[in-house]
């Protein structure tokens, strides 16, 4: 019996280990189920997310999270495995053994071997374990949370088999991001033509070549395909550069000289029109004005114009505007040539006398009075035709007359050599042919270099506009000048009131007119019916009803002002590239003189605004 008593600790140990093993296994299994449940729950989230994101490949793998949960739970459970003390406390609570098992577990160790209660407590604990129903000490295997597992598994299955949601509509590409591919873009060729334009100097040559080169490169890029916005931006840049070239006379360097030259030209009544054109930067018009003066019959008028040109060039040079001075000198030289050509035509016309058709006689008169280039052309054509239509005897008579005049007057407007050549030409058929061609050339004298340049730049700028339009962009108005004509034809025509008793107003220059638009307006010339039909408005009712808001603090748009409202050089780039201070729009030149500033203050105001 003593042996049996002595074996009690061993018996208790064996029994306790068996009970503890069962408890721990069930705990482990329960925790594994918990891990499975939570893992599958995570899998539901993943499967749902994959479904939502249309990642169909990921969906089946969501179930694997259940396995991950089991593994994690087992690892966690192993780490948190109950100690013998915890198991003993659990058994004591379940078997209502008043902590005898826990006490026995404490007394198992060698250190407690001498405890007087050890033997008895261990024996009682062993008895308790032997006599108790193991089912009482089973930890609960299935918890409420384990119910998540089958539901989550079903949810994962559901997400695996339902159809993926429709793909969201792809966001629209940013404006202008579409690729354009154009073999030949209309308008670019005009810009490329700048490389053939006669440049004012080497620097301008370089700039024009660079513009043309860029245009050529753009054309090549467009052939290969280019984003629309990039193409438009590059065209806009080209247009800015072209506009900057047109502004050369108005830049800071030449501005003072230009102002001085304009003052000189304005001092002469004959050259006022030319001064206005030059002030507006319209070199073509300026050239035409000078051509008119060169065509005029009065020698005094021509001399005055020539002198005005000389003084203007001198004044410009004194102010350091070399470019302006060169232009004016070139114009003066051209003026002289044109004058001579005009005199030759007039002289020949006089010699022909009655041989000229009546229309040509009228043209001869108008040519002398107004210097109209159109009349000059018509006269030259008429002279050519008249010479062709003459008999040999008449030609011989004309040659003799020319010889007599040569003897009497020494050639008059024509030089003796010219006169002699002309007389000789009339005898030989081949020479007559050449004479006819020379007359044609005299009818259409070449324009000045500046005018040609401006013409070329205008064409290039228009080409840029066409290119932008060709790419589908709203084409801006080329140039910043309003296209108001300055000829009689642009003035108000006749108005006719529709209301009874309103009367009918009559314009000063009804009907016929010849207007010139601003840069980029293609210099359209034509005749139009300007008879208006505006209803008469009583003075008392003439009130503005406009309710627009005016932002007093902000400047008007660059296209309206002709220049940008920038605060520093090079900070902006409008279409003209004239956004920097120091550059002005053509219409700003001479603005003070044209303004309503009283005469006595103009000089002072002009000095104030002088750069």
């Amino acid at each position, binding site marked *: *019996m*003593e042996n*049996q*008593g002595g*074996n*009690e600790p061993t*018996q208790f140990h064996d029994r306790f280990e068996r009970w503890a093993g069962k408890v721990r296994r069930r*705990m482990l299994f329960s925790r594994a189920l918990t891990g499975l449940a939570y893992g599958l729950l995570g899998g539901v989230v993943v499967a749902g997310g994959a479904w939502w994101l249309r990642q169909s490949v990921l969906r089946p793998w969501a179930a694997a999270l259940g396995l991950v949960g089991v593994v994690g739970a087992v690892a966690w459970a192993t780490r*948190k495995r*109950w100690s013998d*003390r*915890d198991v*003993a*406390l*659990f058994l*004591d*609570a*379940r078997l209502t053994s*008043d*902590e*005898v098992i*826990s*006490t*026995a*577990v*404490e*007394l198992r160790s060698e250190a407690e071997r001498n*405890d*007087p*209660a*050890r*033997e*008895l*407590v261990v*024996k*009682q604990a062993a*008895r308790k374990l*032997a*006599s108790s129903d193991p089912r009482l000490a089973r*930890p*609960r295997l299935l*918890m409420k949370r384990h119910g998540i597992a089958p539901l989550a598994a079903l949810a994962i299955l559901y997400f695996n088999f339902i159809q993926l949601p429709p793909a969201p509509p792809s966001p629209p590409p940013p404006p202008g991001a579409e690729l354009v591919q154009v073999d030949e873009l209309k308008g670019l060729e005009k810009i490329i033509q700048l490389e053939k334009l006669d440049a004012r100097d080497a620097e301008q040559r370089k700039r024009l070549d660079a513009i043309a080169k860029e245009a050529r490169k753009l054309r090549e890029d467009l052939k290969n395909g280019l984003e629309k916005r990039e193409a438009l931006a590059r065209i806009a840049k080209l247009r800015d550069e072209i506009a900057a070239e047109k502004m050369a006379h108005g830049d800071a360097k030449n501005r003072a000289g230009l102002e001085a030259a304009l003052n000189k030209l304005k001092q002469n009544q004959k050259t006022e029109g030319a001064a206005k054109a030059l002030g507006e930067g319209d070199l073509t018009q300026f050239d035409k004005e000078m051509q008119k003066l060169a065509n005029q019959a009065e020698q005094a008028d021509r001399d005055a114009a020539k002198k005005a040109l000389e003084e203007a060039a001198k004044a410009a040079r004194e102010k350091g505007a070399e470019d302006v001075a060169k232009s004016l000198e070139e114009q003066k030289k051209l003026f002289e040539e044109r004058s001579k050509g005009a005199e030759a035509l007039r002289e020949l016309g006089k010699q022909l006398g009655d041989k000229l058709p009546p229309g040509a006689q009228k043209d001869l008169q108008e040519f002398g009075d107004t210097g109209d280039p159109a009349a000059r052309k018509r006269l030259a054509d008429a002279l050519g035709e008249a010479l062709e239509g003459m008999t040999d005897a008449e030609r011989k008579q004309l040659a003799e007359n020319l010889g007599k005049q040569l003897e009497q007057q020494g050639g008059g407007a024509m030089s003796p050599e010219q006169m002699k050549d002309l007389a000789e030409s009339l005898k030989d058929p081949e020479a007559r042919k050449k004479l006819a061609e020379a007359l044609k050339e005299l009818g259409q004298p070449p324009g000045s270099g500046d005018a040609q340049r401006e013409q070329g730049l205008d064409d290039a700028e228009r080409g840029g506009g066409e290119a932008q339009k060709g790419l589908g962009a709203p084409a801006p108005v080329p140039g910043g000048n309003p296209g108001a004509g300055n000829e009689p034809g642009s003035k108000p025509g006749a108005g006719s009131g529709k209301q009874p008793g309103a009367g009918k107003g009559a314009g000063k220059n009804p009907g016929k007119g010849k207007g010139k638009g601003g840069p980029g307006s293609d210099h359209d010339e034509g005749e139009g019916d300007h008879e208006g039909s505006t209803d008469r408005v009583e003075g008392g009712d003439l009130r503005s009803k406009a309710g627009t808001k005016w932002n007093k603090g902000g400047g008007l748009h660059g296209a309206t002002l002709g220049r940008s409202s920038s605060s520093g050089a090079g900070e902006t780039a409008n279409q003209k590239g004239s956004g920097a201070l120091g550059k002005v729009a053509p219409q700003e030149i001479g603005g003070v003189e044209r303004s309503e500033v009283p005469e006595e203050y103009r000089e002072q105001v002009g000095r104030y605004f002088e750069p």
Partner: protein
Amino acid sequence: MTQAEPTDLEARLSFARDASSRLRDAIGTVIVGQSDVVDQTLWGLIAGGHVLLEGAPGLGKTLLVRTLASCLDLGFSRIQFTPDLMPSDITGTNVLVTDQTGGVTGRFQLHKGPIFGQVILADEINRATPKTQSALLEAMQEHAVTIAGTRHKLDEPFFVLATENPLEMEGTYPLPEAQLDRFLLKVMVPNPSEDELTGILTRTTGHAMSAPSQVLGSADVLNLRALCRDVAVAEPVVRYAARLVGASSPESAGAPPIVSRAVRYGAGVRGGQSLVLAAKAVALLEGRAHVAFADIQRVALPVLRHRIIRSFEGEADGVTTDDVVRELLSAVPSRPEPVQQAVAAR
């Protein structure tokens, strides 16, 4: 199942169980009802501590003590505490010895006071001055008294049962907390139930009652006290007692809200020792050689109620220390949390 021979410890446990049963029966011949009070008094006796009995007059406190003393065959002394009671009235004093003729011999002889008994009834202990109270409390702690520089050891078992009357508090000297701590248990003597009162009336209005029989001698009591110390306590049970004591302090992180609000000072180390010792006595008197959580819970009220000092707020709110201890018992888990959850999940 293997049926082992009864060990020596088993026999001693059986004796203890039997002794407690006989003691209860013997006391029951005099005292009607008050079984909890009797049990708690026995815990104090077996654990080797002292017991403070608090109850209204006439509830049989003094009778209980006298009856217990009679049952134990121990020397009984009763000290009626009054405000004019002096320490020497408790401990005794040296007096000059005279010869037969009345002449002075020049020698002094010790006249032992009532403290030199074994079961001491300190009746209405709060009516004496603190100086006198402290004379008793020294004896309780040291189991010895010092008279005129001479230390006198008291006979064992030495067991003090003090009584307090919660009424008529005027002119009393409530025991300081430090001295209250010397009592193992503070037993509240409740009013008897109707049945108990009926029995009391019947028993006390007839002929004089016979004295209760002696059940245990002093040696038996000492044996039981020694056996009490042999009762084993598992570490989780001791830890539970420690958690209870710790949670009774408002500074403790695990203190329940009522402690934080209504307690100024919690139980100390002596409170924890008393918990385990009293629980051992409970286990012993039930014939067990080990302590259960339930034993700790049973003794928690009488052990801790006089060791917890309420705050002003607690007193103002009428929170009793019994309320605090009950809250501690419900708030502090006996087992670790995972085990508790697994036990609860059936």
